[in-house]
């Protein structure tokens, strides 16, 4: 295994980090309505429209977008390595389906339940994300149990049981959709399409803590992930506890995906595409690929959500439309260029 190139590591991540910082500022300043920045910064603590637009409507949303984009991309990297499948993505694991179903059950049956935090001192949060997270945990246990044989998680079983589980859940969701009230169905579809709309810093902080923790766990296994892409047996011969690694990575990414889908719904394409794009740009050393994908995913989703807010203003587009619409062609272009280059050699 090649020694990690420290200079490249610092350069790539430094550039991406700077771009991410610029993106956060840029996306917070852009939107469908005009923002008077001096007004916004002068009266942060009094209620004036400009500071509310910047600090309550936009900033939490931008920060959530960065966390979700980064989390989705890093989970994508790990799943593609773990399952040895370039099509692996966070939406495939079964966890996302379970989270969706949990969220929808919460949305339909307990839409008005609120959970007071610290006796109401910290405000209240909706049960919907909690129900979604519960759904994610249950489906994770389910898929895990059905892919575990003799103490080992089998990639093919993991992939297939995840995909089948998701189709089954999709059927249940469609069934629920056809028996509920017309206007509820409308809300349900919007929820399923995914949105980063939030004003709760508390939720954003929870998600950030969760994703940072999960990400560090994944990153710590970067070297082992490099080895497992050589094949399970090769990795085992090189001293990787493959069984343990697979179980850990599955649990870590499932927990992250469950938390992300719980707050933002199913935002597709980031977890599939960003890892591939970054692999083409920075190479496939997971010690570098993971942080680079995290940062790039954050940048990408941050801008995608800003476009979603602006393009059809005042209407807001589902952000999943933007991620697929702009990400897809760019990905194909990179893939084509890469193919031509390697074939020319």
């Amino acid at each position, binding site marked *: 295994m090649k020694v990690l190139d420290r200079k490249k590591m610092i350069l790539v991540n430094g550039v991406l980090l700077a771009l991410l910082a610029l993106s956060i500022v840029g996306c917070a300043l852009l939107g469908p309505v005009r923002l008077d920045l001096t007004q916004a910064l002068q009266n942060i603590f009094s209620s004036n429209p400009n500071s509310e637009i910047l600090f309550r*409507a936009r900033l939490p949303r931008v920060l959530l977008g960065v966390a979700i984009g980064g989390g989705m991309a890093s989970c994508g990297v790990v799943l593609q390595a773990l399952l040895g499948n370039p099509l692996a993505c966070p939406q495939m694991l079964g966890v996302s389906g379970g989270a969706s179903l949990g969220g929808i059950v919460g949305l339909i049956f307990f839409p008005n339940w609120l959970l007071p935090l610290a006796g109401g001192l910290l405000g*209240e949060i909706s049960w919907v994300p909690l129900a979604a997270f519960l759904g994610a945990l249950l489906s994770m246990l389910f898929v895990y149990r059905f892919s575990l044989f003799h103490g080992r998680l089998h990639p093919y079983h993991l992939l297939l049981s995840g995909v089948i589980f998701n189709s089954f859940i999709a059927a249940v969701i469609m069934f629920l959709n056809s028996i509920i009230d017309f206007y509820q169905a409308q809300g349900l579809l919007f*929820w399923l399409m995914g949105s980063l709309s939030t004003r709760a810093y508390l939720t954003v902080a929870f998600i950030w803590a969760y994703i940072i923790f999960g990400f560090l766990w994944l990153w710590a296994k970067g070297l082992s992930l490099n080895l497992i892409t050589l094949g399970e047996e090769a990795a085992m011969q090189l001293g990787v506890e493959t069984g343990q690694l697979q179980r850990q990575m599955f649990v870590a990414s499932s927990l992250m995906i469950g938390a992300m889908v719980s707050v933002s719904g199913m935002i597709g394409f980031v977890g599939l595409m960003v890892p591939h794009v970054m692999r083409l740009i920075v190479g496939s050393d997971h010690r570098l690929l993971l942080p680079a994908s995290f940062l790039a995913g954050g940048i990408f989703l941050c801008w995608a959500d800003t476009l979603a807010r602006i393009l059809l203003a005042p*209407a807001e587009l589902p952000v999943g439309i933007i991620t697929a619409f702009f990400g897809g062609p760019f990905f194909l272009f990179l893939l084509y260029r890469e193919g031509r280059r390697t074939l020319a050699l």
Partner: protein
Amino acid sequence: MSNRPKIIAVPLLLGSLIVLTAHASLAHAASTPYPQRIVSLAPSVTETLFALGFGHRLVGVTTYCDYPAEAQKLPKIGGFINPSLEAIAAQRPDLVIGVNDSNHPVKAREMERLGLKVALVSVNSVDDILNSIKSIAYMIGSPEAGEKLVRKIKRQFDEVQKRVASAPRRRTLLAVGLRPLVAVGGRNFLDELITLAGGENISGNAAQPWLNLPDEYVVAKAPQVIIEAGMGSDRGRVARNWRDLESIPAVKERRVYAYPSDKILRPGPRIGEGLQEIARLVHPECFAEAKPGFNKGSGCEGSRP
């Protein structure tokens, strides 16, 4: 090989059966000039027929048709978006009435191929809705009932208009869902109702009839009244949702309302009542006869001192 002809014969037989029943129903329609067996494909159409006094002619309604209570007892022919052709045909209707949006035009062509008579009405604007009431009344042979119902609705409109005539227009957000926030856009009869109620729809300039609004747009437009008209919404929850955006006048002045009924959302004969409900929320001072002094200086014509 020997059962091949049978296989062909079955659809042939079925086909002729459908043709025969279609002919039979047409013949029936010809002998009695006005439809006696009507299937409604939309809650607003069902309400219209009952309001015209012809609910007894309905032989099939959608699963969403829950008003008036009698409608719930009628045979169901499926949902609003996915009515079942079989269930409709089984009722042998001599008229099926649907609406012009949704996928009813496509369904109508399929039904016509089965020999059913289908009529579609437009309900995209207030004028459309009033015309749809008149044309449904005309179809069932009672145009005077239609005129009477439309006159009643117009009287309700006039009454509201008189009350709010000189009251200042209030910027209003009318939403059907909070997370995400789905609001009434332009080209929606509810946009017109907001205007008639003395309000001004903050997203009335949007091209879409319904749209998902970002929070920042609501802050920038500073609505003076926020109404959530979704099902099962309670005022406490709606108010809590907006609590942190204090710069919005509706939040500051506590004009955030939940309206847990679909009365105002249906483009049917209850739009007059729906308008009154919206107007009461937009301009409560214009309807507050009971509290003298409360509406001082409000500029409400209809309110008495």
